[in-house]
């Protein structure tokens, strides 16, 4: 389990075991969507905004 700083609010965000690169997590403090860009070392960035053609 590793931690990173939220790029939006600087809160400490914990990556749960089994988290994968490309996964979206939510900052527990400010609620922003974060994309996990790397596991080792742990890194996140603000997730891309939803686009008009997104969906299933």
């Amino acid at each position: 389990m590793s931690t990173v700083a939220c790029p939006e609010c600087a809160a400490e965000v914990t990556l749960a075991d089994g988290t994968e690169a490309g996964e979206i997590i939510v900052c527990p403090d400010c609620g922003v969507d974060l994309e996990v860009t790397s596991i080792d070392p742990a890194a996140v960035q603000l997730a891309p905004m939803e686009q008009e053609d997104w969906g299933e």
Partner: protein
Amino acid sequence: MQRRLKIGVLYSRVRVEEKWIFGAMEKRGIDYDRLDDRAISFDLEKPEPWKQYDAVLERSISYNSGLYALRLLNAFGVPTVNTAAVAEVCGDKLMTSAVLARDGVPQPHNVTAFSPEAALEAIETFGYPVVLKPVVGSWGRLLAKINDRDAAEAVLEHKSTLGSVQHSVFYIQEFIEKPGRDIRIIMIGDKVLTGMYRSSEHWITNTARGGSGELCPITPEIEDICLRASKAVGGGLLGVDLVEHPEKGLVVNEINHTMEFHTMQPVSGIDIAGEIVDYVVGIARMKDEL
């Protein structure tokens, strides 16, 4: 001895579905690559890196990226789940409606117009309430229930002024007084895998919009309409959305070609990700046998 297959999984985000799919690949010892649609490029003079795949499973969140990737892969002769032709039909509500109408599969009453004036006239003829839907889009976004002429004029003006070119296709659908729920069915090839009721207090029942799920028994009627719907759009791995129409009975509301199943898998107790992987492997083997 059978040759070892190579599978590609095209994705945008690792949602829970992708985690389950990757897990199912690994559990089966399948040689697969994760293909992030933001990181790839296609050189039409160098198709070799793509031709190594015996099949590619498309799980892009972006309809455009997914569709163009499928078109290129199919042009290179790489089998895909689903095919570009199926994605083209399912990703566009009007194209879906057209093939359902062609094959006589029951669907809600729809009218299409290409200008706000023609759309208003069509809505007035239709009677209120009606639903205006973007032809491309998902997760219940930008649907508008229109209760009267004032609302129709306002929404049509907003769409034609603020919307992208896609929003100048006005897809008008009857508002169905459904029993607070719709039905999501998962189809894999010619098999109706499982189904779920999606309930909500809101008229939009997508689970992406907070709707909740409950197992739906597969009746012969459900099986029949889903098989016909799947055949109409070209078959494959599909999420068929059905609505219980008070007069017409079951109607096909839309068909999804990269469906999510984060609610369905736990509700049904079926390993949907595993079934998907087995289906993709089957498609890959068919290529091998050609």
